[in-house]
């Protein structure tokens, strides 16, 4: 393979991973944008969708891609419940940002522990036929499963964008993201916008959880690695920015693919954590976002 072909090949793989990362990150960024909650439990709840998809695949042979029709409503529902139980009565006091991080952190622990208790700590994955085949272009290849997942991810993100842009509740959510106080003054029901946004955030995570089952083997504790990756890409893109999540995901996925090729796959995760660290230090507001400091 020539150098140029290799670079294009790595770009292919990076971009086709980036779409799924973006889908995972978009839910997290929406939740932060609307409620200023850094949802540490996002990846843990994503794992719930992964397990649902896994068992649907094992027991009744349901296609992992099709099972997003199962996990999207399910996780929306889980999101609404989670919001009602943990966040609806919380006042936005001086320690709100910190308190919510710790709360979502404890949710992550609860979910991880329950998953571990019921499904043990063994690695799981689904293996539909497209997960092992690829489109070939001369000497280049594009894994089919990753390609489908990325296309679907981009479609879902576009659908979210359209929802926020063209529906009434979508507009309410956007208004809340821009300025909660002003939104309330002009009659936006912030509480409703928050519930819906939290539900949608987790629904997107649910779809991503389904799609990831055939690309990344998972076990309950894996969500810590994921949340590190997701935080790094949405912090890079700017917390609360949908476009930022997409761009951040693509940039980091491509970088990680190159790191993985030249330094070995074990170091690709380090890319994300190091990036997270550096961005927090030098540009905490990311590429497209506002500052994350919340009082």
């Amino acid at each position, binding site marked *: 393979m020539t150098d140029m072909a290799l670079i294009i090949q790595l770009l292919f793989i990076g971009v086709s991973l980036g779409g799924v990362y973006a889908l995972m990150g978009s839910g997290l960024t929406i939740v932060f944008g609307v409620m200023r909650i*850094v949802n*540490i439990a996002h990846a843990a709840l994503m794992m719930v969708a992964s397990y649902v998809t896994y068992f649907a695949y094992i027991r009744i042979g349901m296609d992992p891609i099709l099972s997003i029709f199962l996990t999207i409503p399910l996780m929306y529902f889980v999101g609404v419940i989670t919001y009602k139980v*943990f966040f609806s009565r*919380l006042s936005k006091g*001086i*320690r709100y*940002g*910190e*308190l*919510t*991080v*710790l*709360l979502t*952190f*404890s*949710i*992550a*622990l*609860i*979910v*991880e*522990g*329950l998953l*571990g*208790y019921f499904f043990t700590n063994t690695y799981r994955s689904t293996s539909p036929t497209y997960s092992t085949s690829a489109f070939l272009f001369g000497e280049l290849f594009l894994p089919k499963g990753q390609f489908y997942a990325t296309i679907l991810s981009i479609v879902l993100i576009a659908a979210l964008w359209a929802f926020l842009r063209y529906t009434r509740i979508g507009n309410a959510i956007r208004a809340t993201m821009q300025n909660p106080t002003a939104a309330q003054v002009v009659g936006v029901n912030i509480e409703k916008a928050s519930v819906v946004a939290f539900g949608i955030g987790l629904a997107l995570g649910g779809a991503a959880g389904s799609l990831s089952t055939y690309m990344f083997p998972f076990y*309950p*504790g894996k969500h*810590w*690695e994921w*949340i*590190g990756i997701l*935080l*790094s890409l949405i*912090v890079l893109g700017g917390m609360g920015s949908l476009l930022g999540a997409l761009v951040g995901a693509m940039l980091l996925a491509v970088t990680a693919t190159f790191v993985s090729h030249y330094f070995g796959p*074990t170091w690709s*995760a*380090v890319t994300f*954590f*190091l990036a*997270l*660290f550096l961005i*927090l*230090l030098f540009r*905490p507001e990311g590429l497209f976002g506002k500052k*994350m*400091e*919340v*009082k």
Partner: protein
Amino acid sequence: MTAHNAVNVTLQHEQDAILGRVTPGKKWFLVSLLLVSFLTPVLIFFVNGMNYYLHMLLTTFMYIALASSWNMIGGFTGYTSLGHNVFLAIGGYFSGLIFAELGISPFITAPLAGLIAGALGLAFGLISLRTRGPAFIISTIAMVLLLKLTFDRWDLIGGTGGMSLPFLKVPSMYTKVPFYYGMLLLAIGAVYLSYRIRHSKFGLGLRAISQDEVKAEVAGIPTNRYKILAFAASALFVGSVGARYGYYLTYLRPNIFLTVIVGAQLVLMSVLGGKGTVSGPIVGAVLFIGINEFFVASLGSSELNIVATGVLLAIVLLFFPAGIVGSLKEADRLPSIFDWD
């Protein structure tokens, strides 16, 4: 009168009030508690199965030292660190490596391990404390994940498999005793440091930072220097504990020190007892040991233990954010022997 003088005056007032409150009763309570703690190991000559109780007590001392240390940054200063187990790992691996390579006992190198952890805390604080709120918390999680990845792949210290340390060569009856005293001394040291910080100008500055950092800065408190020093101080004893804990276990593995749950438990203890108070982390640590022992004994599963940690943390955060000591104090029901603030 400048703002700084105003702070000094407030401090003087407060110190007077506090010195007045250290009653003879509290003094006797403290002295007898220490006396009992120091004499308990003598019981091994009279009571069978004492090793179990010594194990429980030394674990309690360890957690008291850890929680009190965490409280210096997480409680007094208001910067929640979810990654303090990093310093535990640094201390453990530092002393363990010296022990394995040079044969010098971790008991001797533990203070040095503490200093190394403190220095690293200083370095990490210098970079990380430029962020605030959620961003800071995330950066501490990133610190754990990054160190775990590095340790997992570092051949010198055995990677994921870790490294084994030789046993302490004493008759089995006495094996717990040196660790018991080692941990007891660290607990006393950490609590004493925490008490001294709480009642110093430095501590007052930290509390100002936790209330409102901008105003504290305006009032003339060198917030940056204070925060970083608090972070380094909070790493100090954690490193020393790590050195002794690793030797106690006789093996070091990234999975023991560097999982997120360990960092979470440090937070839980302080939040449970009451962060920002001197006695809160102690109460929290003792309760945590009790609850943990109950869950492991009755449920016997580490997964459910994780669930319990999460549920407990959520309940405390939602319903008693001030913790036990803090809530009792607000209600004016705190027994005076627990009131060291």
